[in-house]
Structures are given as structure tokens and as C-alpha cells.
């Protein structure tokens, strides 16, 4: 089977083009480094099926980050390269093009973002460019689909002019001469968009803009999340699902192991979807009724932020602070992703250049950045005691994030490289893309979370029956009760936190904790032991040794923080 590789600089629209060619939905955002691994899809090409690979963006074939190394490795396995080029910035993009042409692999160039050339005042002589490069050059707009048909028609015409290997200076000289012949730039006045772009990266105006955007993001997430819970999901569960469950409970005799497993405990005829811990009650209510609304709200807002191109500007503003934590500004992107789910966040640390940065970022994310599922439960349970307590949980985690980063920066050997990133222009989010991405992420959550949540509830019931929890509770009582000031049964939540944090926090609900204890429990649960999915990804990305180091840091940090909170509250 023919294998097509989509290659090009970061943030030129490879993933958007990939979705157009294959129909496979890929995550598309407006910042460099969205794709950190490759995605595979298939398309029809002249009656046959061809494989299409969406490679991470790379500026050159001399890699400077792990994502770029992946792109380079892929190159050895492809038959044809679709070189996606940013039409606005031909000069810089052509460096990779020339390197590809020297490789002897057949190339077709997709001149993407073509619609932008007009209002950005860039004129490109296509015919001349084709002639000078010796390969097909097709103008495209991947977001709208313009030029895709022509591109597909031209894939079989991909050729390799087999340019002789050149040095860096020779390549830049060649590019200079090509640009002189094919590109004309018209002078334009500053637009409103450009004024806004400038204001976003100036210290004072940028700071205000960042505060306004982050505050707005927080309130919109909360508004949508709470709105969905109060006006859609709770009514659905209470009016439609609850009667069915109560009926079923009656049929099953109202008690017994099987009853408790399926329906859960029903205390005094009252059905509590969070506390009953049955497969059909908590097993569905926690993922669908509590977490999903916040997942939808969070990823909708994150998707909009990603697609406008704001995140790289936030990276510039945060750079000075993040340097104190051993990171640079761009690490804000994996950290923000972590507020959704720690797994993609730790994968996204691949956009950072050094192993040291990746270790620090992954450790901080897994300890101090709570995922959306956990946050939804925090809002549900801790929020019921007053938003002030929620603020204490968030404030504590933020302080831990800062202090821990500061300590890691001082203790982990080596130094972290400096920020050097391209900042994409602002654009209005393409709504189709935003909604498609939201669907991908929400679906991904349901597909992964529901089986584990049901499994966790199964395990909880079996362990209760076997009396294992009592044994663990007695064994760990000195730490849990002595240090953290929690009832010894709270340890069950910490154990189940290894499977799913949302279910685990739910286990604190029936313990009749004081508000202070609930805060301590939430913070310790957030910090101690990432869920199993995060564990696996940390093991894969950091290796066994570094993962164990991160876990060591985690245990100490969680117990110290929990102990201090217990003394204060």
C-alpha cells in the first residue's frame, strides 16, 4: 500500500488537511506542536487505498525535540511526502522543502493558508514556484476544503527532482533566490487584529488581557457545567432513572450482595446517586451526571482558546514565572491540558526540548494539576459546603505547584532551555473544528472512563465484602488519622484513587466528614497517586526510574501538604 506522509512546519494545517483527506477526525489547534505523535488514516487514491500519516510539525530534518524526532523517523517509511507549506511565510517553510527534495523522496507541495495571502499582502507566482522546485505546488485552504480535490489529483504526479545535498548556507541562498523570483509583498496598514496581537504580549495590557480571558474561561466553564447538571442531567436522572432503579431495587429484594453491587445501598428509601456505589447508580451517575457536563464545558472553552491562537501568547506572559519552576513559558500548554486530563497533558510535554523539563512538567502535572473529572467532583461535593472551601482546595494546589516546581528546579540536575516559539496570528475559531474536537474529547472520555468506573465500583464492592478495606484501614490508621486527621475509612478513597479519582472522591461522601476534613481529603486525593492511566503514560514517557522518582516526590508532597492543612483547618 502506498504510504503518504504529511510533513511541514508546525502549525501550518497538517492535521486539518489530514482530516480532509482521510475523514479521520484529528485534533486541530492554532498553536505549534498540537500533534505530538502521528495519526494514521486511509484515503482512496486512483481506485486504490493509500495510507496517510499525519506527522508532528518540524522545521528541519535536524530534530530539536522529541516530536520532531518522530517526524524524522516517519520519513524513512513513506513513499510520497505531501509537504504542507504556510503560504504567508514561504521563505522559512521552504527550508524543510529543500531538505525533503534532497532526500530523493517524491514530493507534492500543498501551499496552505492560501486564503490568507490576499489580506496579508503576499503575492506568489505559482507557475514560477513549480518550475523552480520541480514538483507540483497546489494552493489549499484545509479548513474550508478549498484546493483539496486538485491536491488529491496531483498526488500521483509527485516527483523528486533529486537536488544535490547542500549545506545550510547553500539552502538559504537557494531560498533567497527563489523568494526573489516568486514572491511580492505589498505594504499594508496595521489592522485591528494586529493591534490586539501586539497588546496581548505587552507586559501591562497583556497581563490584563490574560486575567480577563482566564477569569472568563473559568466562569464560562462553571456556568455551562453547572447549567448542564442542574437543568439537564439531574432532572433526567431524578425523573427518569431513579424510578427505574427503585423498582429494580424492590424486585431484587432491597438488600444482599448482588443488590448492592447493581443498585447500591439505599438508605431509608432515599436514593443517593453519588453515595450508593452500585453499578447502575454511581456507575452511571458519576461519569454522565457529574463529570461529563464539566468535560464538555472545559473542552469547549479550551478548544476555543486553542483555536484563536491565544495560548502561545499566554506562554510568553508566563515565561518568567515558569523559568523559576525549571520550565519555560510553553510548558503552560501541557499544564492547561492537564486541567482536562493528565494523560494527554503528559504526552504533550513532548513539545518541551529537554528531558529535565519533561520530568519537571510531568511531575508537577501529575501532582498539582487536578483533572476535569476530579474537579467536577470537587465542585459537587466540596462546593456543597461553600465555594470558599473549593477556593482553599484550588489555592493549595496552586501553591504546591509553585513551591514544588521551585524545589525541583533547584534540585534536578541540568538547566532548562529558553523559550523560542512562533506565535500564530489570531483567528476566529472555525466552529466546525471546535465542535469536532469537543466531540472527539468527550467521546474519548466516555469510552475510557465508563469501563474503568464500572470496574472500580465492582472492586469497591468486592473489597468491602471481603473485609480488605477494614484491614487496610486499620493498618494505615496512624497516617490517615494521625497525620491527616481523617477517619481511618478514608483510606479506601485513597486506594480507589489509583483507579479513578472521581469515584474515589465520591467515597468520601458517606463518611460524614467536616468541611475541613473534606478539604484535606480532596487535596490529598488530588496529589497522591495519579490514576492508573496517568501512571501508564508516565512510565512510557519518563521511564521506570524517573516515574519512581516522581512517585516518591508525590507521596512526600501529598503527606506534607495534607498534614499542614490538617493543622491549619
Amino acid at each position, binding site marked *: 500500500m502506498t504510504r503518504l506522509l504529511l510533513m511541514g512546519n508546525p502549525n501550518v494545517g497538517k492535521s486539518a488537511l489530514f482530516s480532509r483527506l482521510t475523514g479521520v477526525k484529528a485534533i486541530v489547534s492554532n498553536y505549534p506542536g498540537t500533534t505530538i505523535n502521528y495519526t494514521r488514516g486511509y484515503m482512496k487514491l486512483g481506485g486504490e487505498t493509500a495510507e496517510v500519516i499525519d506527522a508532528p510539525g518540524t*522545521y*528541519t530534518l*535536524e530534530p*530539536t525535540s522529541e516530536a520532531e524526532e518522530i517526524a524524522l523517523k516517519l520519513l524513512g517509511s513513506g513513499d510520497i511526502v505531501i509537504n504542507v507549506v504556510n503560504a*504567508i*511565510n514561504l*521563505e*522559512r517553510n521552504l*527550508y524543510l522543502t529543500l531538505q525533503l527534495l534532497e532526500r530523493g523522496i517524491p514530493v507534492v507541495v500543498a501551499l496552505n493558508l492560501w486564503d490568507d495571502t490576499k489580506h*496579508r499582502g*503576499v503575492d506568489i507566482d505559482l507557475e514560477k514556484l513549480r518550475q523552480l522546485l520541480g514538483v507540483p505546488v497546489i494552493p489549499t485552504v484545509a479548513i474550508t476544503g478549498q484546493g483539496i480535490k486538485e491536491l488529491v489529483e496531483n498526488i500521483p504526479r509527485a516527483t523528486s527532482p533529486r537536488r544535490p545535498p547542500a549545506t*545550510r548556507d547553500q539552502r*538559504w541562498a537557494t531560498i533567497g533566490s527563489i523568494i526573489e523570483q516568486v514572491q511580492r*509583498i505589498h505594504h499594508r496598514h496595521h489592522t485591528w487584529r494586529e493591534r490586539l*496581537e*501586539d497588546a496581548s*504580549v*505587552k*507586559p501591562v495590557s*497583556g497581563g490584563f488581557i490574560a486575567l480577563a480571558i482566564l477569569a472568563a474561561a473559568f466562569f464560562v466553564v462553571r456556568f455551562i457545567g453547572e447549567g448542564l447538571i442542574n437543568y439537564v442531567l439531574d432532572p433526567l436522572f431524578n425523573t427518569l432513572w431513579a424510578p427505574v432503579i427503585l423498582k429494580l431495587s424492590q424486585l431484587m429484594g432491597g438488600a444482599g450482595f448482588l443488590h448492592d453491587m447493581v443498585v447500591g445501598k439505599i438508605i431509608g428509601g432515599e436514593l443517593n446517586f453519588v453515595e450508593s456505589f452500585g453499578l447502575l447508580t454511581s456507575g452511571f451517575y458519576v461519569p454522565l451526571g457529574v463529570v461529563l457536563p464539566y468535560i464538555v464545558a472545559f473542552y469547549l472553552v479550551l478548544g476555543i482558546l486553542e483555536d484563536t491562537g491565544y495560548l*502561545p501568547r499566554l*506562554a*510568553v*506572559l508566563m*515565561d*518568567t514565572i515558569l523559568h523559576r519552576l525549571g520550565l*519555560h*513559558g510553553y510548558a503552560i500548554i501541557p499544564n492547561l491540558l492537564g486541567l482536562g486530563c493528565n494523560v494527554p497533558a503528559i504526552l504533550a510535554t513532548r513539545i518541551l526540548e529537554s528531558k529535565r523539563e519533561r520530568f519537571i512538567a510531568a511531575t508537577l502535572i501529575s501532582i498539582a494539576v487536578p483533572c476535569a473529572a476530579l474537579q467536577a467532583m470537587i465542585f459537587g461535593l466540596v462546593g456543597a459546603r461553600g465555594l470558599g472551601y473549593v477556593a482553599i482546595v484550588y489555592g493549595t494546589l496552586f501553591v504546591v505547584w509553585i513551591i514544588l516546581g521551585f524545589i525541583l528546579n533547584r534540585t534536578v540536575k541540568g538547566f532548562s*532551555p*529558553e*523559550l*523560542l*516559539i*512562533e*506565535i*500564530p*496570528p489570531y483567528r476566529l475559531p472555525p466552529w466546525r473544528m471546535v465542535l469536532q474536537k469537543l466531540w472527539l474529547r468527550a467521546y474519548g472520555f466516555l469510552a475510557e472512563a465508563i469501563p474503568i468506573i464500572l470496574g472500580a465500583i465492582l472492586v469497591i464492592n468486592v473489597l468491602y465484602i471481603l473485609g480488605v478495606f477494614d484491614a487496610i484501614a486499620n493498618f494505615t490508621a496512624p497516617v490517615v488519622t494521625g497525620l491527616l486527621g481523617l477517619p481511618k475509612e478514608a483510606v479506601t478513597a485513597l486506594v480507589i484513587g489509583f483507579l479513578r479519582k472521581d469515584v474515589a472522591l465520591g467515597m468520601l461522601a458517606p463518611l460524614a466528614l467536616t468541611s475541613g476534613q473534606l478539604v484535606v481529603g480532596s487535596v490529598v486525593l488530588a496529589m497522591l497517586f495519579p490514576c492508573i492511566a496517568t501512571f501508564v503514560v508516565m512510565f512510557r514517557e519518563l521511564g521506570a526510574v524517573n516515574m519512581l522518582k516522581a512517585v516518591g516526590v508525590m507521596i512526600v508532597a501529598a503527606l506534607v501538604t495534607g498534614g499542614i492543612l490538617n493543622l491549619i483547618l
Partner: protein
Amino acid sequence: MSRHMQGFGGRFKPQANLVTLAQLKDGQSGTVVEIQGGRRMTDRLNALGIMPGKKITKTSAMLMRGPVTVEVDRVEVAIGFGMASRLVVRPDHVP
């Protein structure tokens, strides 16, 4: 020109008509004269279109030795302060 400046241990010494990008004023344009860094730093900057001979305009600088943003070939690039201090620029108008 480049050999002349390398004698100062890689650190830029003030010289007539030349400043570092970190010293360039906000909104000011200039031409890149030299990148005083190793191969890796040079490669990374080149990849973003920043190399000797290029016209750049400084858009802004963050406080407390924060990153500098510049426009080069219609693209905005953010550069850490340390790197910006090793990028030698000839300003269009003498400051």
C-alpha cells in the same frame, strides 16, 4: 565583523550603531548582524527565519528579563531573554 566581536567571550560589547535584541526599543526595527550562540541556538533561530541580514521589528518585551517578541517576515516569534541578549542587531535609526 563577526570575528571582531567573538573576542569578547561570546558576550556582546557595546559598539557604535549595534545593540542586542534585548536592548532594542519596543517598536524599533533593525537588521540582524550576528547570532552569538552555538550551533543549536543558531539552528533553532534560523528555523524560525532569524538569521544575519534579516529585517526584524521588536514588538514587545516582558518585564524582569522576560521574553522578547519580534516580527520577522510577517510572523511573530517569541525569544527568551538570554537568546535575545546574544542576538546582535543594527537598528534602523540610531537610538
